[in-house]
């Protein structure tokens, strides 16, 4: 059987297309099938595919049932709603569905840690950023003068400061 599109190569991919109510069978060669799949991808936005992506990693049926029943206390959206519409209901949904959204965000973005600007008051953040910078300078000096005990203590302070307020790190890593 020859490919329905190019009519040259033999058809190795068999596709059933349903547009509105009519069903159409297509027999395609590999190359035309690839082109066709690219076209089809363009018809779907990434967000349309989210429902499908929001699957759980090998869950048991019980876990699955429990997950879809989770409801955001603030806006009433359930995880099942999210899977269906591909949109969250409000900012609180991110907390309500945190356990499942983490892996989803990882799948979409390849990361689950924000490195960018934050909406918090610039003055407040820059003060703390100043502290952090001052500590880093002290650390550098301590290392240069081989005051290793002091260096270790400063390093711990830096770690603590970074851990306590992730926002500071994110602001600091901004390149703009």
């Amino acid at each position, binding site marked *: 059987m020859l490919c329905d599109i190019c009519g040259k190569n033999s058809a190795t991919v068999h596709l059933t297309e349903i547009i509105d109510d009519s069903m159409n069978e297509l027999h395609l060669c590999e190359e035309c099938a690839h082109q066709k799949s690219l076209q089809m991808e363009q018809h779907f936005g990434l967000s349309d595919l989210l429902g499908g992506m929001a699957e759980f990693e090998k869950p048991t049926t019980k876990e699955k049932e429990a997950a879809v029943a989770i409801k955001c206390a603030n806006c009433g959206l359930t995880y099942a709603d999210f899977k269906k519409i591909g949109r969250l209901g409000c900012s609180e949904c991110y907390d309500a569905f945190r356990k499942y959204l983490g892996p989803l965000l990882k799948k979409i973005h390849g990361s689950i840690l924000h490195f960018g600007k934050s909406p918090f008051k*610039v003055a407040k953040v820059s003060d703390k950023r100043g502290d952090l910078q001052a500590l880093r300078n002290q650390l550098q000096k301590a290392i240069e003068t081989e005051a290793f005990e002091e260096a270790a203590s400063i390093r711990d302070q830096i770690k603590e400061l970074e851990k306590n307020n992730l926002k500071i790190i994110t602001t600091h890593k901004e*390149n*703009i």
Partner: protein
Amino acid sequence: MKLDDLINHSSEWLKGTGPNSDIVISSRIRLARNLEKIPFPHWGNDKQGEGVLNAITEAAGKIDYLKSTTTFKLADLDNVDKQFLIERHLMSYEHAQKTDSKAVVIDDEEILSIMINEEDHIRMQVMQSGFNLFEAWNIINKLDDSLAKELSFAFLADWGYLTACPTNTGTGMRGSVMLHLPALVMTTQINRVLAAIAKLSFTTRGLYGEGTQATGNFFQVSNQVSLGHSEGDIIENINGLIRQIIEQESQARETMLSRNRAVLEDRVNRSFGILKSAHIITSQETIELLSMVRLGCDLGVVKDLNRSSINELFITTQPAHLQKLESKKLSSQERDVKRAELIRSKLKV
């Protein structure tokens, strides 16, 4: 400012100036922001939608930066008005659907616009002519800071700005660059370039954004990933990719000029000829022919025409623009006649 005033005004991004403006039409940055705890537009009720609209317009009113802007409520606009704003890239097609509690804020220069209650409570964008994402970022960053002082944006330290769709979570930023790549299309290298773009996690769209096909050799390239990289890094990544595409398009143009000059001049001048003499023309054909004339203009094959007047024609020949120019509703057939008339008058040499 009245909506109809815009027709006599040239948008900043159409000026045909700025870095690499032979290949890059415009650069755009958009940020998605939401108010804490209030349901996202698709999930909230009418009262919540109105509340969001009021809170954001009130906040915008306090910002010096937004002094010379006008707010248009979508419910007050007719279909031609809405289409007109879409054609000018001041709002999305999605924003024009279901108009309750929606508005768009536009500045006089048409550099920035803020869509209220689109997919997110706030979608702000800044456009610049040419290859200039960092300048667009500098402007929008200040605007965002000003708005953040007036409104409580939904934000988590680890996940960044929270958006209705998780594909925008993090920076909530999308940087896009509109490219004109006729030589890569003519030399059939474009598929290789588009495949490379997709592989690098960037997306390509047509002239009017999401879901539109690339027409007239125009391609909009934007980042897909918004979490895990700072805004600066994301822009730098787009810039790196765009620089390579510019390089390839330039090389393809050079090659065509040196090896196939006659073919190129023929195509450009035939396109120019049709535009100057047609009495009926569709917008699709217009875009395709103007694309060739623009290429001819960039390469010095067509003289006595400047880039901004060609850019202008891409927009003024669109359906809603023609109807605004004529101040009346026109059928599709009437538009094709008026379009040809407008083009002939603008290209008179």
